[in-house]
């Protein structure tokens, strides 16, 4: 491939952080025990052998869970951190939007801050002069430019920061880190329009986000980083699917300890819980299999489950009483097996399953919130239930 077509090339990048358990931060420590072996230093491998290339004009996404090493990678591409091994080559000028308004000073006026912020990005007074009006227009705060920044509302500050960054950033490569969630709805739409315009102009953009919808909408290619390494580099749809998979193990099997929040008097307890599939890709049915043990003779019992989404909103649920199955006079040592079959009608996202065992007069045997989880990723609208009997008739006439 022609070298000129590569905008950013990341080659075998490693990054280790040395984390001393007790940092020697004062000379006293150093002098008081000069020969004492320093406290153990733990090496954290933040990035392992990261390689990819970004072509000119590409809208390249980087996704990953929190703590995956994504931010470290970003800082290395922005040349704030030095890689421990490997190299990053940027062809042209790169402007990072890692955080907005870095270096803004509350004691300076809006105007002065524009020039200061511009200089930090390497723009001369003259260059900023030429774009000053555009910046102020974009931020929509013309009237306030000669007031001190400390008198701005936080929304105004963010708008100014974003404008400086966007208008000045007619650089070769742009690095954008989840700065979209700023400002009011109107300004957000404006920012999105701006990103669309960037895409049209054929700018090289590196875009880091958790928002799979934004990733799908803008990115040509995406790299998925997990546990300090590149999992996959591919099209947005493919990577978004892989990303969702990260949140679920292939066959989520909850063993009884650990996970979730559990309480009850333990007269009856869940001894196993399996959900399959843990990743819904087609409109599969969801099967929740549970096994229960009776630890003490009880008069009666009923068993239920509930599914809620990541925002803790209940989607659906049911219980044995509702299904007209009665459990009475349960004896110690009995084992009960239950299998719920539920239509997989949920939209894309991550879901949690609560299960319960209680008596008919609400004596709790075993309540278990977030006992297990599953994900749906099939390109439907996130958060919305897709009922099987929905139908759409469409007609077009000329």
């Amino acid at each position, binding site marked *: 491939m022609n070298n000129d077509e590569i905008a950013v090339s990341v080659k075998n990048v490693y990054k280790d952080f040395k984390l001393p358990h007790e940092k020697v931060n004062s000379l006293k420590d150093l002098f008081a025990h000069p020969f004492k072996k320093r406290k153990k230093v733990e090496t954290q491998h933040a990035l392992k052998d990261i390689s990819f290339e970004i072509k000119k004009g590409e809208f390249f996404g980087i996704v990953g869970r929190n703590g995956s090493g994504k931010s470290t990678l970003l800082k290395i591409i922005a040349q704030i951190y030095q890689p421990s091994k490997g190299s990053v080559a940027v062809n042209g000028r790169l402007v*990072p939007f890692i955080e907005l308004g870095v270096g803004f000073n509350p*004691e300076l006026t809006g105007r002065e801050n524009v020039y200061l912020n511009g200089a*930090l990005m*390497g723009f001369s*007074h003259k260059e900023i002069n030429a774009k000053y009006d555009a910046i102020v227009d974009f931020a929509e705060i013309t009237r306030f430019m000669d007031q001190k920044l400390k008198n701005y509302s936080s929304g105004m500050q963010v708008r100014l920061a974003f404008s400086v960054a966007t208008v000045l950033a007619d650089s070769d490569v742009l690095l954008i880190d989840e700065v979209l969630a700023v400002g009011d709805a109107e300004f957000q739409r404006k920012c999105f329009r701006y990103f669309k315009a960037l895409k049209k102009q054929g700018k090289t953009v590196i875009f880091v986000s958790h928002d799979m919808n934004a990733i799908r909408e803008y990115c040509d290619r995406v790299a998925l980083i997990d546990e300090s390494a590149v999992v996959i580099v591919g099209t947005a749809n493919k990577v978004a699917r892989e990303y969702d998979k990260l949140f679920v193990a292939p066959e989520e099997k909850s063993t009884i300890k650990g996970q979730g929040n559990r309480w009850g008097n333990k007269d009856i307890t869940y001894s196993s819980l399996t959900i399959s599939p843990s990743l819904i890709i087609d409109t599969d049915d969801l099967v929740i299999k549970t096994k229960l043990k009776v630890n003490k003779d009880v008069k009666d019992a009923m068993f239920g489950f509930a599914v809620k989404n990541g925002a803790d909103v209940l989607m659906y649920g049911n219980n044995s009483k509702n299904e007209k199955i009665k459990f009475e006079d349960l004896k110690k040592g009995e084992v009960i097996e239950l299998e719920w079959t539920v239509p997989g009608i949920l939209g894309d996202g991550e879901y949690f399953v609560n299960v319960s065992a209680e008596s008919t007069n609400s004596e709790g045997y075993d309540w278990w919130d977030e006992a297990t989880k599953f994900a749906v990723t099939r390109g439907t609208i996130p958060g919305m239930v897709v009922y099987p009997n929905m139908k759409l008739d469409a007609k077009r006439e000329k």
Partner: protein
Amino acid sequence: MNLLKKTQSKYNYSIILLKQLVITDFKLRYKGSVLGYVWSLLRPLALFAVLYVVFIHFLKFGGDIPHYAVALLLGVVLWNYFVEVTSQGLSAIVGKGDLMRKLSFPRYVVVVAGSFSALINLTINLFVVILFIIINGVVLTWSALWIFPLIVEIFILGLAVAFLLSALYVKFRDISYIWELVLQAGFYAVPIVYPISMVIAVYPAAAKIMLLNPVAQTIQDVRAAVVWSGTPTVATLYDNPYIRLIPIAITIVLAVAAALYFRKQSASFAEEI
């Protein structure tokens, strides 16, 4: 050709940033104070007034040395410059930790900008000294022009110390206390309030060693050039012309060492702050 362009753009960046940081610092320095820039004149003048009353008026330091008051003021102004450069330099990197963590820009610019801000202050103060020179009736000769290379020397020295301290401070936070003590001791180890002739009279060997300190050397040399040609300097205390070069050599060695150390450390500033 490409390389040349790259180097040029790299320095352009530094110069743009340097200019803006110096301007910002100048604007911010006395923001919110009523007297504003007047303070940068009042501070050394107030110190001078105290020292003048205590040491010249009551203790009769300086005795029959011509224009000792002007020499004292000059000493105070130059020493203040050194204090300002080094203390600002000390916190230059750590104080801008937020920027270091979030932007990549040439780190050294922050330290250099601090030095230039102090230099502007020194220039303003020197105008006040000129006023005193005129009032006191000091006769200026062509040798007064030596002040320019001497200011260059103390500028380089201050910058070197600032580089060293700023990088060390990232790793060892004790440095700020240590440096405060060093500066306090330095105020007396450098002939600022007392004439060096007092030391020569008692311990000539000590005076000789004291003047090898580049700060003391520049202050004495500036006094000799501007105020009174009879001021003892390294050149008058030592016959060996090579020994006169020691303070300059110290400055150069320190500057090179500081630059190398800073360069090495600056790569990891973002992680360590």
